[in-house]
């Protein structure tokens, strides 16, 4: 079945350092979405990437979708304590309905 792998599992950075999480799907995706989950909270949608090679930015966050539409990354520049949480990628296959989540990357930021 469709699998979405995400690394690293956990990252602890000093405030101001950069952070990147990577996502890789076993199948070609129609789109990939990124969610953030704060401790004790629910997944909150951040962004969606649809086109091959697409790059989108949200302030200090940069999202990329690979040319083959099988991998994606989220990069945070100059992390802040408000960035803490778990970042999940979630992919949907072409004509598919379900979103399959990666395992998530837990980000901790030390001030």
């Amino acid at each position, binding site marked *: 079945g469709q699998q979405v792998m995400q690394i690293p599992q956990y990252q602890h950075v000093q405030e101001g350092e950069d952070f990147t999480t990577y996502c890789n799907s076993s199948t070609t995706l129609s789109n990939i979405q990124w969610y953030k989950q704060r401790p004790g909270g629910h*997944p909150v949608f951040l962004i969606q990437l649809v086109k091959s090679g697409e790059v989108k930015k949200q302030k200090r966050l940069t999202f990329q979708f690979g040319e083959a539409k099988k991998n994606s990354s989220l990069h945070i520049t100059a992390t802040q304590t408000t960035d803490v949480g778990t970042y999940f990628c979630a992919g949907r296959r072409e004509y598919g309905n*379900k979103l399959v*989540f990666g395992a*998530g990357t837990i980000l901790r930021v030390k001030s």
Partner: protein
Amino acid sequence: EPEVTQTPSHQVTQMGQEVILRCVPISNHLYFYWYRQILGQKVEFLVSFYNNEISEKSEIFDDQFSVERPDGSNFTLKIRSTKLEDSAMYFCASRGFRQNTEAFFGQGTRLTVV
């Protein structure tokens, strides 16, 4: 802003008992989902529902699970005979009709089976 609402926020039940988790999706959404997240682990797909029927389900969604949309607004997940390993956070989500739309998640129901 429209939101997905789930009730109850926390449910404690004895092993073997039936539970019903309730969700009110966003009103003009057509696709509905249940996911679960065991503490500290990934968000796992359970089932998707469209046009009053299940469109996809995972291996987790066995005969103990069922979903219903009884009245056009609520979307429920029933677990017939709960097991200890059913303890998890259960999230309901909904999305609009177009393929490339995001899913909106509810706040979740924490189910504890004792």
